[in-house]
């Protein structure tokens, strides 16, 4: 592993060298200074009429300014290079760099915005003035993500955007993120939004190997942690169906548009440096009992065997300090040493990120920017880590007066070391670390080699159960590595005719190669027990996504007051995933972990291909400056759905009315009403579900007359019936909203109310197995969400030296499953049941999505729990399953405060989610093992059978598993930033900006209802596991410094 990373470092140096060359090359293109006379004519783009009286000025030099004459002509003398600024009231200001041209003719577009008005990036990267947009779009500035950062920028969005539910997954340094926008759209499938970077849709598949039933596995991360936060200029989140309608089926879960930083034409050469270092420490949420130690029946271990047998049985005697046998036969004091076990095990991590970027803006309108980023996360999770290097470039070329070419590329190389096993006990370092009896110091589990092995290298078993792995062994001996190389590139050519028409052509490709290695050495106790002599998996995954887009359009001025902007486009998309896996058992030579050293290797190959064709179009009508209407349509042809049906046309209509233009309300800067309706299609997650296919499953060798004849064994289909009638699902959404800005934007208010209906959701319905199959994929799911989103922002205090800004958001979204094709429910997943836990989640007709069910004791006619007199506890065998509510949090809110005093800044973000539920296997297991405070007090005998406390509490725990379903509500102080902005004057303006800040993330949980674990501790981002908690990586707090330098 180390060697591999060394070569990565070399690569980085090479890139750095290349980039310097690149910059120098472009820099040398800058012209030497000369004086020139520029002449030209200014006309109205729509009417071609001349514009008289327009101002033509040299940027940065207000002394040099002229006005156009009655014929619209002007003449100005400038020192090149320079940028000319053309201004006239009612028109959009234009800036045109002067290079070698002597004539610059300008066509003014009618201003669709007021000066200073916010621009919004909408679908397909089209920027519109805020007032024109008839649906809710939320924008987050990249700067908000870079100071108190997380490895994946997506995590930083948590709490910031109304209607967007972000939750990180507790699975290590490169864990995935679960993002749902306005609730779920697919009841059993993928609900992650589409991420688009500068017009390039990205692959965001999640390699989650965690078994959905909670039997362990790893989270291999998703596609978003490959993006360097320092490259992000803004993030625009399209939430409703109308906002995403132009993306068709791909936008059904919402769209996150990322605009990266770019060089600015005419801006010259610039360097930006960002350096961030944070330390990372585990947050110990546990609050277990510390009165009793390991043992059974109230007795401490009497010998080594007792100690091993009771490592997960905290039913011993009172901790009295006596010398008692440990798992290794050594006698140690029988007293509480539990506090600090988690921080003894999870050491302090360190995370360093450095980004340097160079930009060059040329005077002919071209610009370029390259950046290098390096992230090195030595995680607090022992022997785990995440390293990432990114190299990006964006170049915007102006080739003559009508043609532009935008080229962008991003390369990321990553190494994720030992993504931890989670959920179940096998190979999960977090399991034993969490459940150690209070008298056991976790450091004693290190063993003579410090890595959880015995002297001979075999796993040092602290527990009699081979399937409960020593945490040090899990961390240091089990091996997993994921190497990723990703290249994303796009080329966008746009030709604008003099008449105003444009034709755009874009090709974009995203290519990801992942190499995953996993080794279970023959020394692991559970591997010995399985008798497989160790095993290894080598998986090579290739994912590509190709998009080709052709667009055309023009803005027409129909009358003086009415104009229409027409856009037509066509898209071809191909997505491919190829998996080549080699797995084998029995290492022939010990300690040589390669697949060539495996005695029984097997190969597997899979290839998923999807192709789509789409046509789309939109027409934006604007009447004067207060009435706007957008109509869009999109038709998708799917390879994954029923063939031959092409009549899926998804419409959207949205409009906005800027009433503040008509009713001049005092102190109101903007008052807008908006309304939209859209119907967009949805697809299936996986290809190949419409047609029966046939294949081979090995062969049978039959001896005939001393020869062996091989009979290949066939098969037809799988357990799910192919459905050749699958049609797209549809998301139909009606949204109204208003936006009001007051007091020179010191108070802003944005409200959206929507109703979203999902119709014909494609769900796997259980069918009778006498049909030959277990499930059928049918278009039968219907779901509805009602929601309210409020964003309230303002600057309550604005003084010369002191400024206080506050931004708050509030979300309400409540869903209901309307029908499932006659089925009362669909089971999503159940928690691992071999630990005695049985809770499951279902989509249930008539209820909120993601209902959690758990065992509840038998009750009598009066609703009183029936107690079995023999044990004084309810009989678990008589328990029935009860609904304990939804895993979804219908309410959420966030508030961000920023104070500025002179050059000091102080910011803090508080966020919370409310009303959801979570089943905690950690708490269940802590109860069953006697670790939980619920298992106090302890009596010697319960009931007429005189059972010990362990039986009594275990009966209660098994019979009433509902007690381990908790409210998932929480309020967290998510982050604080304390910074100082050095004024440029300090550096004689040699440095344009220098900012140093102290940052801290996951500062403090202000409120939570669930004991012992973090309320956000889910172990996978899959919908099936939402609502479940099981031992996974405890949350961490990071704190450190961020330095940003602009040269």
């Amino acid at each position, binding site marked *: 592993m180390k060697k591999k990373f060394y070569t990565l470092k070399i690569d980085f140096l090479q890139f750095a060298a290349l980039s310097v060359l690149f910059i120098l090359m472009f820099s040398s293109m800058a012209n030497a200074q000369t004086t020139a006379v520029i002449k030209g004519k200014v006309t109205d783009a729509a009417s071609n009429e001349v514009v008289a009286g327009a101002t033509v000025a040299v940027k940065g030099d207000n002394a040099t300014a002229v006005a156009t004459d009655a014929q619209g002509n002007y003449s100005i003398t400038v020192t090149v290079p320079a940028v000319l600024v053309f201004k006239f009231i009612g028109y959009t200001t234009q800036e045109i760099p002067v290079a070698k041209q002597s004539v610059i003719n300008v066509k003014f577009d009618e201003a669709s915005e007021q000066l200073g008005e916010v621009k919004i990036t909408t679908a397909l990267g089209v920027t519109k003035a805020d007032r024109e947009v008839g649906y809710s779009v939320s924008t987050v500035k990249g700067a908000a993500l870079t100071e108190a950062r997380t490895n994946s920028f997506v995590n930083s969005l948590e709490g910031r955007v109304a209607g967007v539910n972000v939750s990180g997954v507790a699975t290590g340094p490169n864990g995935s993120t679960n993002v749902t926008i306005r609730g779920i759209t697919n009841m059993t499938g993928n609900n992650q939004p589409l991420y688009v970077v500068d017009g390039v849709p990205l692959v965001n598949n999640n390699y989650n190997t965690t078994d959905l039933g909670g039997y362990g596995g790893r989270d291999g991360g998703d596609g978003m942690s490959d993006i360097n936060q320092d490259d992000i200029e803004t993030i625009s989140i399209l939430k409703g169906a109308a906002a995403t309608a132009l993306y068709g089926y791909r936008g059904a879960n919402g769209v996150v548009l990322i605009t990266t930083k770019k060089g600015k034409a005419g801006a010259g050469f610039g360097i930006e440096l960002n350096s961030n270092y944070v330390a990372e420490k585990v947050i110990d949420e546990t609050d277990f009992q510390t009165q009793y130690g390991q043992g059974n029946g109230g007795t401490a271990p009497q010998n080594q065997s007792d100690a091993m047998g009771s490592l997960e049985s905290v039913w011993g005697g009172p901790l009295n300090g006596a010398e008692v046998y440990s798992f290794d036969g050594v006698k140690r004091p029988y007293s509480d040493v539990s506090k600090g076990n988690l921080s003894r095990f999870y050491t302090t991590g360190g995370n360093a990120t450095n980004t340097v970027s160079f930009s060059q803006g040329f005077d002919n309108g071209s610009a370029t920017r390259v950046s290098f980023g390096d992230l090195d996360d030595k995680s607090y999770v022992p022997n785990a880590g995440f390293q990432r290097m990114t190299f990006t470039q964006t170049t915007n070329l102006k080739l003559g007066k009508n043609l532009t070419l935008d080229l962008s590329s991003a390369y990321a190389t990553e190494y994720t070391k030992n993504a931890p096993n989670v959920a179940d006990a096998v190979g999960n370092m977090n399991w034993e670390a969490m459940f150690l009896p209070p008298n056991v110091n976790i450091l004693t589990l290190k063993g003579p080699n410090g890595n959880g092995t015995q002297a001979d290298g075999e796993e040092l078993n602290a527990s009699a159960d081979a399937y409960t792995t020593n945490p040090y062994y899990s961390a240091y001996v089990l091996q997993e590595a994921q190497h990723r190389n990703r290249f994303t590139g796009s080329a966008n050519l746009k030709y604008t005719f003099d*008449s105003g028409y444009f*034709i755009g052509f874009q090709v974009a490709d995203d290519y990801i190669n992942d190499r995953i290695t996993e080794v279970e050495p023959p020394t692991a106790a559970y591997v010995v027990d399985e008798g497989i002599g160790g095993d290894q998996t080598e998986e090579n995954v290739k994912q590509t996504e190709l998009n080709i887009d*052709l667009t*055309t359009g*023009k803005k027409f001025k129909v009358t003086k007051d009415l104009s229409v902007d*027409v856009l*037509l486009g*066509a898209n*071809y998309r191909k997505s491919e995933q190829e998996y080549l896996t080699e797995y084998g058992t029995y290492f022939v030579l010990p300690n040589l972990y390669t697949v060539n050293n495996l005695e029984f290797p097997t190969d597997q190959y899979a*290839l998923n*291909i999807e*192709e*789509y*064709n*789409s*046509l789309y179009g939109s027409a934006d009508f604007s009447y004067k400056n207060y009435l706007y209407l957008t109509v869009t349509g999109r038709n998708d*042809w*799917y*390879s994954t759905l029923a*063939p*031959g049906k092409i009549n899926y046309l998804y419409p959207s209509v949205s409009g906005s009315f800027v009433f503040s233009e008509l009713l001049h309300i005092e102190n109101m800067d903007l008052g807008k009403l908006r309304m939209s309706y859209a119907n967009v299609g949805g697809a299936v997650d996986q*290809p*190949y579900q*419409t*047609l*029966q*296919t*046939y*294949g*081979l*499953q*090995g*062969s*049978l*060798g*039959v001896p*005939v007359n001393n020869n062996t*004849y091989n*009979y*290949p*064994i*066939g*098969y*037809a*289909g799988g*357990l799910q*019936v*192919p*459905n050749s*009638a699958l049609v797209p699902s549809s998301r139909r959404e009606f949204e109204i909203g208003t936006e009001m800005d007051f007091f020179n934007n010191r108070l802003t208010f944005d409200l959206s109310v929507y109703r979203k209906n999902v119709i014909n959701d494609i769900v796997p*319905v*259980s*069918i*009778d*197995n*006498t*049909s*030959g*199959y277990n499930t*059928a994929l049918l278009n039968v799911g219907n779901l509805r969400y009602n929601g309210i989103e409020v964003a309230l922002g303002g600057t309550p205090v604005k003084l010369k030296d002191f400024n206080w800004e506050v931004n708050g958001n509030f979300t309400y979204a409540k869903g209901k499953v309307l029908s499932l094709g006659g089925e009362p429910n669909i089971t999503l997943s159940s928690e691992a049941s071999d630990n005695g836990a049985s809770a499951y989640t279902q989509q249930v007709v008539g209820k909120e999505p993601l209902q959690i069910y758990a065992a509840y004791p038998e009750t009598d006619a009066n609703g009183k729990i029936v107690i079995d007199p023999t044990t004084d506890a309810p009989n678990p065998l008589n328990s029935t399953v009860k609904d304990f509510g939804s895993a979804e949090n219908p309410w959420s809110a966030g508030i961000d405060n920023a104070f500025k005093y002179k050059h000091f800044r102080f910011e803090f973000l508080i966020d919370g989610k409310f009303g959801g539920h979570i089943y905690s296997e950690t708490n269940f297991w802590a109860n069953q093992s006697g670790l939980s405070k619920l298992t106090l007090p302890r009596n010697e005998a319960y009931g007429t059978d005189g059972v010990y406390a362990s039986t009594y509490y275990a009966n209660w725990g098994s019979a009433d598993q509902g007690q381990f379903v908790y409210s998932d509500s929480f309020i967290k102080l998510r982050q604080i930033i304390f910074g100082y902005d050095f004024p440029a004057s300090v550096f004689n303006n040699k440095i344009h900006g220098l900012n140093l800040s102290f940052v801290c993330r996951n500062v403090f949980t202000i409120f939570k209802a669930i004991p012992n674990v973090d309320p956000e501790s889910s172990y996978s981002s899959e919908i099936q596991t939402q609502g479940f908690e099981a031992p996974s990586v405890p949350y961490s707090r990071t704190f450190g410094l961020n330095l940003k330098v602009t040269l």
Partner: protein
Amino acid sequence: MKILNIYYIAGAMLLLASASCVKDLTKVNVNPTAVTADNYDPNLLLTEVQLNYCGSQAGENWATEWGGTGEFIQQMASLDGFYPGDKYLNSAGYGNYFDQQYIASVQPVIELYQLTKNKPQYYNLHQIARLMKALVFERITDLYGDVPYFQAGLGYYDNIYNPAFDTQQSIYTDLLKEVSQATDSLSTSADYPTGDIFYFPSGTSQIAEWKKFGNSLLLRMAMRLTKVDPATAQSYIAKLTAAAGTTMTSNADNAIVEHSGQSDETFNRDAQTILGNDSSGLKFCKTFIDTLKINKDPRLHVIAYLYRNDNNSDTTSADQVGLPAGCILGGSNPQVNIQIVDPYFQVAGIQGYSTLNSNVLNISAPTLVLTYAQTELLLADAAARWGSMADAETHYKNGVVAAITQLSAYGSGATISVTDADGYLAAHPLNTTGQAAALGQINYEYWISCFMDEYEAWCNWRRTDNDVTHKTLNGITGEGYPTLYPTHYPGNATMSTIPRRLNYPADQQIQDAAAYRAAVARMGGSDLLTNRMWWDVNN
């Protein structure tokens, strides 16, 4: 002009887009690691069906066959809850066959049937598909009674997701028709199916074998109607015996599936599931061992063994000990506590009882699907009932010798010489003086010949239990079916009678509720082990 321009551009784009749409997206949605029906060789499915008929990985072999039927008819017994059949308790395992075989066998055999239908190049393969389909459904209905048949397995072809249950009578009517038509249709001038692991190598002899197989299967199905419709049974027998050599004529005609230790698919599923679960709990029943010992059956020492106290295995026939049926270890009930019921247990423990010899229970052991021995014994039964005792005697002789010598299929360790078989036959000649006595002897031999096909042994017992002579075992030598002594396990589900059918799996009540209720209503509203199915009419 301007407006016109945009039309041109839009038109060009539409052309471009539709050109790309012409490319058939449907083809993209075919898994490149698999093929579609057009490019597939359905022979591969024949291999799959023939293997899966012998069981799947999912447990019908241990739970339904060995833990149920094999214990009902007292070939096997156990002290474990894992194999509950000798106690007549309800068990979820009885539903395993139903749950698994509709997926493992019905689905591929329907595919085989559909892919070969009306295709001249697969003419014979289609007839074999019909025979395999009949074979698969015969066992399902014989175990459970009314089951989905006409709509079953058509989830893909007809989008039938919750098939109706058909009456056993209607199923049998169709099975007889299908088997007789398919058999008659087999042609030596058409294709020789290559995926056939019952009969190989392919060629004209293969088709001849399938004709004999079809007719022998037809005989077995017709004989199932002994109780309910003897006239129909007889009419088929008359056709089948009109010419010599219609049914199987020697052990070389046996339909046998070879297994191998290569992969899950090729394993002998009995061995995989019994050895893979709890092999120590399954023992030979006292009834079976005692009978074979009394009759000095040469088969005993190749199919059974036990551990002696010195931990060496012992295959000597005289040393074999069977476990009394219906017992458990411990408890205070003297009728069921093995320690009280059988003092031998105190000496030898559970290890001291005979169990399946690795000759017959190993991962590569073959499965005998349909045999010449069964066929001859059924012909002997038919002759004894409706024909001449002389014919019955001939068929009995053929059947007994074949049943003993067919064990050579399990390899040299299980091979018994013809001399030994003749010796056994000489010691046990058919009693031709009385029909019931003859039938008792014939069906006793059938009971043993079906050893390792416990389903069939139980089916034939239910067909014949009324009209055969039984012999008690207590020291009485003689011929005839041994009395299967009913066990009296407390709380048993059959009022201490041997089960007459298996109840449906519990998930049917949820997945196919309406169809299930209709089927149960036809049985008088309850889904019991004691309900009699159509051909097992009580008369």
